[in-house]
């Protein structure tokens, strides 16, 4: 059965198809100008702009706290309906909150209630769906974890992501969830190369720098501090406190690369891409420690996958968030905007607005876990701990754009065929992933592709404000312009563009933040009643950290109860 080079054939065919049409039109003499639609015509493309409920969220800031929330107003406990009177209240149904809830239940704790602002739990691990495919709206993959991360492995086993252990004791991952081959490609110099680290068209010196950097990260994976801990670990809290390593955090990644003589533009593009991809920051405002952590902390082992393997699903990490939620049974109420918190000696009172009625109601709990980002958490408790309000100012969040495009087909270009992750060299976005990549059905021409775009051109605050003001039509043009850079002519094939804006998409590990005091202070419990769980307390917005922070806070709750 002779094979034909399908790749080449299609492109040639498509090219000639257009020529052929042109020829035919010449023959018929019916060439009219409106036959060739202008390339920037996007009127056929549907879609809309969405995002987390930031308008309702801003009620918190804009509406003032009301008399109830003022610290100098004497506090009298409000009436609370029985369903809102619980042992432990968790505010925030993202991965950290769901992780805390699951862990507490597994320790036998009952009488837990979780409240969430959005209509769905899952936080950043949000997803959408259309007739073509489910697709991610935020976090969308998990690298296989370090085997020492027992708690995470247990969770994955319960979620059937790990199906067993090999005779050597290594986890066996579910083949359906390990990212299928081909995984990654990069469009560089008009050619799709395999893998994201540029290899095409590098000079000998540039190649040597790439080699040197890779060797460096291999060494860093093995590096251990004076306290016996790994220099770079996930969760971040497991990393060595050795000042020799921690001092890398005070330096920007850019300054570090200058200092170490990594000048190759290709390598630096790749490292900048990595910072954007994982943190939503660029080389200048990422700490060197965090920049290296991206490479040096991935030490996963598996019986059937390599250290660089990732787990992914059409709906992205919504799969994991759903599993987290389903591994516990206690009540979850969505559509509640927590507004302010007061307490007395043995109870915490939370005032919240119902998203449905816009009316306030009260919740009462012995302990509360605030599984919300610090710009919300510290504000919620400003009546109790006003001195902590300034802590939030040191937390900087990167705004993100996530666009899901439904395309009738994707032009096939020279080089690697369509992969899971498809990146364009030198453009602003970090490329797109293909939602149906994990699907086992024969590839259809129709695809949903998810374009990820951290808004790093301006400072996060400015970029966020601008993002909130930019109308859908402008986003659509920008997104198509970005995609056209990688796939000229693709606009005509796009049917739908769904735009999602994360105003506070990811915590940015800016120089000094991870080694600094603010995140430690922000994580400190208040009066044995208030606890804090969010990935921003790790300084990195990744699933593993959120999962860890949830369990850490849950453990603190239990520890306090025992005393």
């Amino acid at each position, binding site marked *: 059965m002779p*094979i034909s080079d399908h790749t080449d054939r299609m492109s040639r065919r498509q090219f000639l198809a257009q020529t052929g049409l042109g020829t035919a039109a010449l023959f018929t003499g019916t060439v009219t100008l409106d036959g060739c639609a202008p390339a920037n015509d996007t009127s056929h493309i549907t879609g809309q702009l969405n995002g987390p409920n930031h308008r309702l969220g801003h009620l918190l800031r804009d509406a003032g706290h009301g008399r109830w929330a003022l610290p100098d107003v004497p506090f009298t406990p409000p009436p609370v309906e029985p369903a809102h009177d619980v042992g432990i209240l968790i505010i925030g149904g993202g991965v950290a909150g769901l992780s805390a809830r699951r862990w507490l239940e597994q320790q036998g704790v009952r009488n837990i209630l979780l409240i969430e602002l959005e209509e769905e739990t899952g936080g950043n691990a949000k997803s959408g769906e259309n007739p073509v495919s489910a697709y991610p709206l935020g976090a969308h993959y998990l690298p296989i974890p370090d085997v020492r991360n027992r708690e995470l492995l247990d969770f994955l086993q319960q979620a059937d992501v790990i199906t067993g252990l090999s005779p050597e004791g290594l986890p066996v991952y579910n083949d359906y969830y390990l990212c299928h081959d081909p995984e990654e490609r990069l469009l560089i110099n008009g050619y799709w190369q395999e893998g994201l680290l540029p290899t095409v068209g590098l000079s000998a010196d540039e190649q040597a720098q790439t080699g040197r950097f890779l060797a460096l990260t291999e060494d860093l994976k093995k590096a251990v501090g004076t306290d016996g801990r790994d220099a770079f670990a996930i969760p971040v809290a497991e990393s060595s406190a050795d000042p020799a390593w921690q001092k890398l955090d005070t330096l920007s990644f850019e300054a570090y690369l200058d200092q170490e003589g990594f000048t190759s533009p290709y390598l630096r593009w790749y490292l900048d891409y990595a910072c954007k991809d994982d943190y939503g920051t660029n080389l200048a405002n990422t700490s060197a420690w965090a920049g290296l952590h991206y490479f040096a902390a991935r030490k996963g082992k598996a019986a059937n996958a390599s250290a660089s393997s990732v787990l992914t699903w059409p709906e992205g990490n919504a799969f994991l968030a759903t599993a987290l939620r389903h591994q516990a049974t206690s009540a979850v109420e969505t559509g509640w905007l927590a507004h302010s918190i007061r307490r007395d000696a043995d109870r915490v009172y939370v005032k919240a607005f119902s998203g449905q009625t816009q009316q306030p109601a009260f919740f009462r709990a012995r302990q509360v876990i605030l599984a919300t980002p610090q710009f919300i958490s510290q504000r919620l408790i400003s009546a109790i701990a006003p001195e902590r309000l300034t802590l939030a100012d040191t937390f900087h969040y990167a705004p993100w754009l996530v666009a899901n495009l439904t395309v009738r087909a994707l032009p096939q270009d020279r080089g690697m065929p369509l992969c899971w992750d498809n990146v364009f060299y030198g453009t602003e976005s970090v490329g797109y992933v293909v939602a149906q990549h994990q699907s086992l059905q024969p590839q259809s021409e129709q695809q949903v592709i998810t374009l990820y775009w951290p808004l790093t051109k301006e400072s996060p605050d400015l970029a966020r404000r601008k993002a909130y003001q930019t109308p859908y039509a402008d986003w659509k043009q920008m997104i198509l312009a970005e995609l056209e850079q990688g796939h000229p002519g693709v606009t005509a094939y796009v049917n739908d563009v769904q735009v999602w804006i994360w105003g506070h998409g990811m915590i940015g590990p800016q120089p000094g933040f991870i080694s600094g005091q603010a995140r430690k202070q922000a994580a400190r419990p208040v009066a044995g009643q208030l606890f804090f769980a969010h990935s921003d307390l790790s300084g990195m917005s990744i699933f593993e950290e959120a999962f860890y922070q949830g369990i850490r806070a849950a453990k603190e709750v239990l520890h306090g109860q025992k005393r």
Partner: protein
Amino acid sequence: MADSGSPNRRQLLLLISVFIIATCGLIYELVAGTLASYLLGDSVMQFSTIIGVYLFSMGIGSWLSKFLDSNLLRWFIRIELMVGIIGGLSAPTLFVLFEFTASFRLLLYTFVSLTGILVGLEIPLLMRILENRIAFKELVSQVFTFDYIGALLASLIFPLVLVPYLGLIRTSVFFGLMNVGIAAILLYQFPETRPYRPSLLTGILATALVLATGFVFAGQIMSFAEGQSFQDRVIYAKSTLYQRIVLTQNRRDMRLYLNGNLQFSSADEYRYHEALVHPVMQGTQSPEKVLVLGGGDGLAVRELLKYPSLTSIRLVDLDAGMTQLFQQNSRLRQLNRNSLLSPKVQVINTDAFTWVRADTSRYDVIIIDFPDPSNYSIGKLYTTTFYQELDHLLSPAGVVVVQSTSPFVAPKSYWCINHTLQAAGFQTIPYHLYVPSFGEWGYVLALRNKHWRLNGKLPPDLRFLNQQTLRDMLHFPPDMAEVPTEVNKLNNQALVQYFEEEWAPYAN
């Protein structure tokens, strides 16, 4: 100069022209219809739409003729030139552009309409040229007599002489030259053409040269057009949702191509299918239920139906276009002996991976006849994950066979499939045979334990397999000996890479 001929002779010349252009006109129509049937299939549809469009265009041409005034002869010669070039080049152009155009039909009907319009202009113009030379009733009678005789001639010589001896491209080019020839003769037989002879002569010579070149190189044009893929006559071609199905025929055999890849030749497919089906059927005692994955041609099922003990055969093939073709087309039904219409056979058109995960039946035998792993999509059907899913479908003593590409051309691919089946927990028995149209071809039997009998009873009327060939197939000479390979998994797709690397030198 010969333009001193008598008016009577010129009149006769014009009537002969009517005869020739009528022949040419019908030939172009027949060429278009035949070509469309070759390339698009469904000849009834193609012929009737092409005849309709052509006649309608002739109507347009006739109507347009009233707008041509002044020098009618000059117009007629010009039109002959245009018919010659457009009609004459219609077949080569359509063949060459077929592979490349998004809408072949648009191109086809453009050619048909243009030729039709020009041909439609011819007769009215000629009648007007002749109107002052002959009485009207004579004129009508003579012109149409010649016209219809020409049509009869065309319709007889086209199938009997032209297609068999000249082929479509040469036929169309040849009649293009005839039109040009008419133009040349008229130009030199009529004195009134003198003023514009030089300019038209240039056109005639250029057109004749192009057409003559086309005539000489028709063979090369044809082989280029077919992309060297189908040397034989295409008797059926259809693009389904998933693939392009092409059937070709020559004196020796009929061949099926999917996306340009040969699937079988009727001359030796019995070797492939006997070797696919009968060894696995020896692997289990009185099998009752069989699952066939792929194999939409029904040829494996044909072999299965030789076992009366079977009560149910379930065939899962993605492409309904394929299974319907093999259920409906009489020649193909002859080849698979109506196997897909047997009451024992259930045909399911869906994706095998999804189906295997969802199915809850148990089968004694599973026959896997997927296309070769030439892309990542098909590569998934050769992974440990897929083979592990077979476990819950297989009865305790069940046996699986997998068509596994060529152990000679692609030893790494072949042994990779073997190792993948082993990694999925099966005991394997690799074997191979020679299929002339494919070359050396390999299969892997996969069993829960090595209980496989060599001396079971084979159905009586096999052409290739007997106890001796069964034993021979197990022997792998050194040039096809087992090589170490990776195991094919969803997250490495090692097989697709081996396959690409090993078959690349054979790709055209």
